[in-house]
C-alpha cells in the first residue's frame, strides 16, 4: 500500500478561472485525459487547477500572490461571477493509492488558502514539477541561468542536500575569511589603551607604549627605564618592589586620612570675615552644646516656678470655652456650683481674665521646656560623635605620636564618664591636635610638590593594566593568525568536498543523459545531436552551475544549444529533459500534465510526440490539453481509448464556463430548472443540439466542411438538415410527433421549433411559460425516443466506413435503424 503510486481519480473545478459552473473530470475508469479546445476556451485552466492544488502559496506561477508588475495576483484565480452567483471558488481532487481514496479541497479565494493534506502528500512525491507548459519549455534551455538549472536538476536528482551543503560551505568559507580579517578585537585594545593613557597612545605600538611608561616613571625616578613591557624587566621589578615598600609606610593618602580624622575632632582655620582663627570640630561643638544645655536648664527652672499651679492647666483649658466672649454666662461655677457673683473673680469677665493669665504662664513654660529638651538631645548627639571620633584617630597615628595617643586616650576616658557639666578641659588636647595638623599639612605639601599624584603603587597599577592590554593584543593577533590558517585549511577542505560532490553529481547526471537523449532522438529522429548536462571545470570555484550543451558537430562539441538548434529542436530538447526527469523521478505520483506542448512542431513531429507518449509513458497518468486538433487526433490514433478519455471544448460561455462536447444536458437538469421556478429554454435548446450532433456523428451524416475558424460550430438547422438527408437516403421516415403541424425534423430544419411562438421568445434566452416549455420538451422526447434500436432498445448507433445503413452500436446486436416500432401517444 505504502509503495502504491498516487493516481488522480477526479478533478473538479468550481468558480475557478473560466469554470463558473462546477465541472468534474472523472478519471475513475479511464485515468488519462486529452482535451482539445480553441485558444481562450478554458483548457489551460485544467492544468491550472492541478498547479494551484499543489502550489505552496495557493496560486499560479504566472499570477503570483499579489497584483504587481505583470502578475494579476490570486484575485484572478476565482471566476469573476463566482461571488455574484454565490459559487465558492474551489478545486477538488480525489486520489487513489492502492485501495484508499483520498480527497482534498482547496479554496481559490480569500486568505489563507491552505493546501489539503492529500495535496501535501502528492506534492512530496513530485521530485520534478509534473506540469509542462509549452510556452515555458524554452526557458530551461535558453533563459534559465546555469545556477538555477543546477538547483533544479540537483533537486530532480534529489541532491537538494548537496545544494544546501555547498551553499553553507560557501558561506562558511566567506565568514571565516571575514573573521580572519576582522580587526575588532585589536580596535578594542586600541580604544582601551587610548582611554587608559589619556589619549597619549591611540594605537598599540610597544615602542610608543614604552615611551609613555617612561613619562610615568620619570615623575618618580628618572633613572627607571623599561626595555620591554614585561614583568621580568628589571625596571618593572624595581617599581614593583618600591610599590610594595610604599604600601608599608604612610603615603600621601594615609596622611590625608589622618588629617581628615583629626579635623573632625579639632581644627583651626582663618575666619574670612574677622581674619582671626575659627575653631571647628567636635571638641568646640561639645563645649557649645553643654553651655547651651546649661542655659536652657536655668530658663526652664524659672518658668517652672512661675507656673507652680500648672496642675490646674487642664481645668483652665476646659473651662476657657465656657466663659468665652459671646457665650451665655453661667450663673454658677460649672464645677463647684458657687454663684459667680460671690466667687473670687466676682464676675464672668473676672473669670475670663484669670484664665488668660494662667494660660500664658503655661505657654512660656512649655517653650522653655522644649528648649531644654532640644539642648539635651544635642548634647547627647555631639557627645556620642565625640566619643567615636576620639576612638577613630589613635589607630591611624604612628609610633612618633605616642604622646598624642595618650592624651586622646585620657580625654576619651573623661568623655565616656561624663554625665553633665562641667566638661573636661580640652585645651591641651586642642594644642596637640593643632600641632599634628600643622605637621601633616607640611608633609602633604612636600609630597605633592615632589611627585604630584604619582606613586609607585599607582604606577605599578598602570603598568599592570598595560601588560594586560599587551596580553589581550597579542592574543587577538594570534587569534587572527589562527583564523587565517583555519580559513586556508577550510578552503582546502571545501575544495575537497566540492570535488567529491561534483563527482557524485556528474555520476548521477550521466544516468540522466541516456533517457534524455533517447526521448530527444524519439522526437527529432536518429540524426538528433546528443546533449549533456555538464558541471563547470573542476578549477571553477562555483560548482553550483550546470551547463546544457550539445555536440553539434566534430568541430562544435559542447556548444550552447540555442546557437545551433532550431526552435522546435530546442523545444524538443527541453521537453525531452523534463519528460525524462519526470519519468525517472516521479514514480510515486506518476502524473504528467502537458499544456499546449506542440505549438512549435510540424505535423510529423506532433505525430512523433503522440507516439512517444504512447510508447514511453503507458504507466503514467497523462492529462493533455491542446489547441492543435491534428495532435489531438494523433493522440487518439496512437493512444487508443482503453485508458484515455478524449473530449473537446466546443465553446466558452462567460456565465457558465467551457462547454464540452460531451457535456450532456440531462432530462433531470431540465426538470430541476422548472422545479426551481426557472425557464429551461436554454437547456432544452442545448439538449436538442447535443442529441442531434451525437446522432449525426453515430450515423456519419454528410455535413459541410466548416470554415477553419468555426471548425466545430454546427447549427441545429444544419444538423437537422444533414440528419433528414441521411434518413431520406436510407428511405426512413421519422414518425409524426403528435401536436406538431409538420414533421418534427422538418420543424428543426426550418427553425420552426426554434422560433415557435408558443414556446420561445426571439431572444436567445426565451421566457415562455413553463407549460409551453414542458409541452415542447415532451414533443422532443417523443421524437427522440423513436431513435432506438428496434431490436435491443439501445439509443447509440454506428455506421462503419463502407456500410450504407446505420446499425445498433452494440456489437452483439447491430440491428439496422428502423422506425417500425409503434409510436406511443403523447
Amino acid at each position, binding site marked *: 500500500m505504502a509503495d502504491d503510486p498516487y493516481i488522480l481519480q477526479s478533478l473538479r473545478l468550481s468558480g475557478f478561472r473560466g469554470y463558473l459552473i462546477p465541472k468534474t473530470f472523472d478519471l475513475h475508469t479511464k485515468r488519462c485525459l486529452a482535451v482539445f479546445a480553441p485558444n481562450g476556451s478554458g483548457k489551460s485552466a485544467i492544468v491550472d487547477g492541478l498547479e494551484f492544488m499543489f502550489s505552496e502559496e495557493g496560486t499560479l506561477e504566472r499570477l503570483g500572490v499579489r497584483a504587481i508588475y505583470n502578475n494579476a495576483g490570486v484575485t484572478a484565480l476565482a471566476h469573476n461571477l463566482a461571488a455574484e452567483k454565490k459559487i465558492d471558488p474551489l478545486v477538488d481532487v480525489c486520489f487513489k493509492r492502492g485501495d484508499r481514496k483520498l480527497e482534498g479541497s482547496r479554496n481559490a479565494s480569500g486568505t489563507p488558502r491552505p493546501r489539503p493534506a492529500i495535496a501535501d502528500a502528492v506534492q512530496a512525491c513530485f521530485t520534478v514539477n509534473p506540469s509542462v507548459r509549452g510556452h515555458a519549455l524554452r526557458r530551461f534551455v535558453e533563459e534559465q541561468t546555469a545556477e538555477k538549472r543546477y538547483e533544479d536538476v540537483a533537486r530532480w536528482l534529489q541532491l537538494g542536500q548537496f545544494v544546501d551543503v555547498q551553499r553553507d560551505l560557501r558561506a562558511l568559507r566567506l565568514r571565516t575569511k571575514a573573521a580572519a580579517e576582522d580587526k575588532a578585537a585589536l580596535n578594542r585594545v586600541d580604544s582601551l589603551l587610548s582611554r587608559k593613557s589619556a589619549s597619549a597612545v591611540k594605537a598599540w605600538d610597544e615602542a610608543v607604549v614604552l615611551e609613555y611608561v617612561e613619562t610615568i616613571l620619570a615623575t618618580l625616578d628618572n633613572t627607571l627605564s623599561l626595555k620591554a613591557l614585561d614583568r621580568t624587566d628589571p625596571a618593572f621589578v624595581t617599581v614593583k618592589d618600591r610599590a610594595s615598600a610604599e604600601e608599608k609606610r604612610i603615603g600621601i593618602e594615609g596622611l590625608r586620612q589622618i588629617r581628615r580624622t583629626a579635623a573632625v575632632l579639632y581644627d583651626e582655620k582663618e575666619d574670612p570675615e574677622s581674619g582671626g582663627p575659627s575653631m571647628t570640630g567636635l571638641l568646640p561643638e561639645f563645649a557649645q552644646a553643654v553651655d547651651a544645655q546649661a542655659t536652657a536648664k536655668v530658663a526652664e527652672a524659672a518658668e517652672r516656678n512661675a507656673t507652680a499651679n500648672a496642675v490646674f492647666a487642664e481645668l483652665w483649658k476646659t473651662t476657657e470655652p465656657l466663659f468665652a466672649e459671646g457665650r451665655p454666662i453661667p450663673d454658677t461655677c460649672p464645677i463647684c456650683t458657687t454663684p459667680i457673683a460671690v466667687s473670687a473673680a466676682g464676675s464672668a469677665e473676672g473669670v475670663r481674665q484669670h484664665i488668660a493669665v494662667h494660660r500664658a504662664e503655661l505657654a512660656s513654660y512649655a517653650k522653655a521646656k522644649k528648649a531644654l529638651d532640644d539642648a539635651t538631645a544635642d548634647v547627647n548627639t555631639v557627645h556620642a560623635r565625640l566619643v567615636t571620633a576620639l576612638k577613630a584617630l589613635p589607630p591611624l597615628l604612628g609610633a612618633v605620636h605616642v604622646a598624642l595617643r595618650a592624651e586622646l586616650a585620657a580625654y576619651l576616658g573623661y568623655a565616656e564618664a561624663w554625665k553633665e557639666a562641667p566638661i573636661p578641659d580640652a585645651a591641651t588636647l586642642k594644642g596637640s591636635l593643632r600641632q599634628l595638623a600643622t605637621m601633616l599639612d607640611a608633609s602633604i605639601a612636600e609630597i605633592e610638590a615632589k611627585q604630584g599624584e604619582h606613586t609607585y603603587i599607582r604606577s605599578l597599577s598602570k603598568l599592570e593594566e598595560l601588560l594586560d592590554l599587551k596580553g589581550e593584543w597579542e592574543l587577538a593577533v594570534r587569534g587572527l593568525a589562527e583564523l587565517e590558517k583555519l580559513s586556508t585549511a577550510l578552503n582546502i577542505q571545501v575544495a575537497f568536498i566540492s570535488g*567529491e560532490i561534483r563527482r557524485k553529481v556528474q555520476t548521477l547526471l550521466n544516468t540522466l543523459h541516456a533517457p534524455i537523449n533517447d526521448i530527444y532522438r524519439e522526437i527529432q529522429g536518429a540524426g538528433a545531436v546528443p546533449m549533456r548536462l555538464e558541471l563547470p571545470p573542476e578549477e571553477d570555484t562555483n560548482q553550483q552551475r550546470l551547463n546544457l550543451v550539445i555536440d553539434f558537430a566534430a568541430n562544435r562539441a559542447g556548444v550552447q544549444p540555442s546557437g545551433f538548434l532550431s526552435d522546435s529542436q530546442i523545444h524538443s530538447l527541453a521537453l525531452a529533459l523534463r519528460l525524462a526527469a519526470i519519468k525517472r523521478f516521479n514514480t510515486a505520483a506518476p502524473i504528467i500534465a502537458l499544456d499546449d506542448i506542440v505549438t512549435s512542431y510540424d505535423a510529423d513531429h506532433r505525430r512523433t510526440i503522440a507516439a512517444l507518449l504512447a510508447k514511453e509513458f503507458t504507466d503514467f497518468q497523462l492529462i493533455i490539453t491542446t489547441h492543435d486538433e491534428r495532435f489531438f487526433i494523433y493522440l487518439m490514433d496512437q493512444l487508443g481509448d482503453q485508458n484515455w478519455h478524449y473530449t473537446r471544448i466546443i465553446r466558452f460561455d462567460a456565465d457558465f464556463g467551457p462547454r464540452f462536447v460531451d457535456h450532456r444536458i440531462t432530462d433531470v437538469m431540465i426538470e430541476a430548472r422548472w422545479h426551481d421556478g426557472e425557464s429551461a429554454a436554454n437547456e432544452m435548446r442545448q439538449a436538442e443540439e447535443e442529441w442531434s450532433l451525437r446522432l449525426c456523428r453515430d450515423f456519419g451524416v454528410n455535413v459541410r466542411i466548416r470554415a477553419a475558424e468555426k471548425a466545430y460550430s454546427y447549427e441545429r438547422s444544419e444538423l437537422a438538415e444533414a440528419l433528414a438527408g441521411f434518413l431520406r437516403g436510407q428511405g426512413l421516415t421519422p414518425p409524426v410527433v403528435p401536436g406538431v403541424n409538420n414533421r418534427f425534423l422538418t420543424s428543426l430544419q426550418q427553425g420552426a421549433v426554434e422560433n415557435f411562438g408558443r414556446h420561445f421568445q426571439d431572444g436567445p434566452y426565451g421566457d415562455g411559460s413553463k407549460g409551453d416549455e414542458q409541452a415542447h420538451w415532451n414533443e422532443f422526447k417523443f421524437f427522440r425516443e423513436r431513435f432506438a434500436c428496434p431490436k435491443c432498445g439501445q439509443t447509440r448507433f454506428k455506421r462503419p466506413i463502407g456500410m450504407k445503413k446505420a446499425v445498433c452500436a452494440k456489437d452483439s446486436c447491430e440491428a439496422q435503424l428502423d422506425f417500425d416500432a409503434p409510436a406511443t401517444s403523447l
Partner: protein
Amino acid sequence: MHIDVDAVESPAAFLVGLGKALKASQEMDADLASIVSQHILTATPAEDCMEQAMIAIIALAATRATPAKENADG
C-alpha cells in the same frame, strides 16, 4: 584522495561518508574536519548549522591562540 562514488548511495549517506573521509585524512586539519563533519556534512543538519560551525571555528582559533600554560590553567 577520492572516496568511492556510488550512484545509488543516498545523498545523506554520501555526505556522512565524505565527513568520515575528511576526518581520517592526514592532509586535512583534523579539528576543522570534525567541525565541518559535525555541522555541515551530516544527514540532519541543524537550521543554524552554519552559525554553529562558525562559532566552533572561532572557538578553535581562540584555543589555539591561547598559550599552552593558560590552556592548562583553564
